[in-house]
């Protein structure tokens, strides 16, 4: 900083720029060392979403959660407690159950809801904890692929199950 300067229009600053919501870049050489959080707020942040995806995802978590409680507790009850518990489970038992469209539907619903609920939960965990955009993209792609694979395979099995195999 100097005290002897010549006043020309060149040094006139048109507008406030020191504090712009970016915070940094104050011209202080020490800025190179500031302790920064992983991701800071940027200009693009207030970006209106055209869809309600996040809201629907949030609602889905609440609703599927309630339904899953019923489905999973019922499932556990039938599998582990009623009619002699675990010992009864065998190929014949499964085959018998899946002969009824009701149980087919139950298991199908349970598979879809549990997988979507779980993977949506994982998606939020990845969103929260992955620091880099690329890491986030990779993790989500992997998880999405695993979910699609599991759901499709499970659905295929339920619908194409042949008790006479």
């Amino acid at each position, binding site marked *: 900083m100097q005290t002897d300067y010549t006043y020309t229009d060149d040094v006139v600053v048109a507008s406030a720029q020191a504090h712009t919501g970016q915070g940094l870049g104050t011209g*202080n050489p020490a800025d190179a060392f500031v302790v920064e959080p992983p991701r800071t707020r940027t200009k693009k942040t207030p970006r209106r979403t055209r869809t309600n995806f996040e*809201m629907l995802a949030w609602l889905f978590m609440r609703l599927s959660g309630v339904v899953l409680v019923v489905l999973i507790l019922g499932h556990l009850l039938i599998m582990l407690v009623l009619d002699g518990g675990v010992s009864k489970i065998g190929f014949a038992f499964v085959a018998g159950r899946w002969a009824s469209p009701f149980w087919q539907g139950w298991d199908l619903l349970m598979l879809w809801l549990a997988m979507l609920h779980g993977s949506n939960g994982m998606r939020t965990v990845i969103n929260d904890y992955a620091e880099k955009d690329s890491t986030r993209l990779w993790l989500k792609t992997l998880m999405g692929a695993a979910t699609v694979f599991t759901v499709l395979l499970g659905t295929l099995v339920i619908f194409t199950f042949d008790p006479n195999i």
Partner: protein
Amino acid sequence: MSTPTVEKHSAALDAAELGGVKLITVTVRIRRFNPEEHPDPVWVDYQLEMDPKERVLDALNKIKWEQDGTLTYRRSCAHGICGSDAMRINGRNRLACKTLLKDVNPEKPITIEAIKGLTVLKDLIVDMDPFFQAYKDVMPFLITKGNEPTRERLQTAEDRERFDDTTKCILCAACTSSCPVFWNDGQYFGPAAIVNAHRFIFDSRDEGAEQRLEILNDREGVWRCRTTFNCSEACPRGIEVTKAIQEVKRALVTRRF
């Protein structure tokens, strides 16, 4: 009305009035950081004689005034109303001026560091601009349509009560900087911005709720809240922050507010 009250002296009042203070030795451990001197932060211990009834801010002042003038922090009103001195004291976000030494176990070293999730510029000073940017992005002002009335707008006491809790916010950033989602993703609006949106969404005089809700429906909006309740615990004004966020979520689903 004129019953003398001095007879019913409680033990608390006696304790408050006790003149002879017992000083204790307090160790204050502060995470110092001055990029002009060294690129890395460092923990520094200070020992001082303090009355346990004094504030943590008094301890910081005593250090600055008597031991180390380079210690840097923000402070103004010193009684929890201006929101300058939010910091992490023993791992929890508090206002230094609203925390008494005796309440943070002065037997052990008291650790003090800058609030998390915002860029640390020097010692306990962080860059508040991203925080205020999030606040500005939720349109924190009364939006009305039509002509202004000549007198005041009417509002029933119940309608006024509806958003009373969130009007208490002093923008100290204790909530936002206690939020684990915000720590990892500064793009998240954060509890404070949502609280200030809530203050207007539920104000019966306001007509901009739809716009604000749309903003908070964003990917970085209310849906990122994981209801960990850190914000409610951190709020020095006792605002039920998590509840306010849930109410905004509910308003988004039901479109009733």
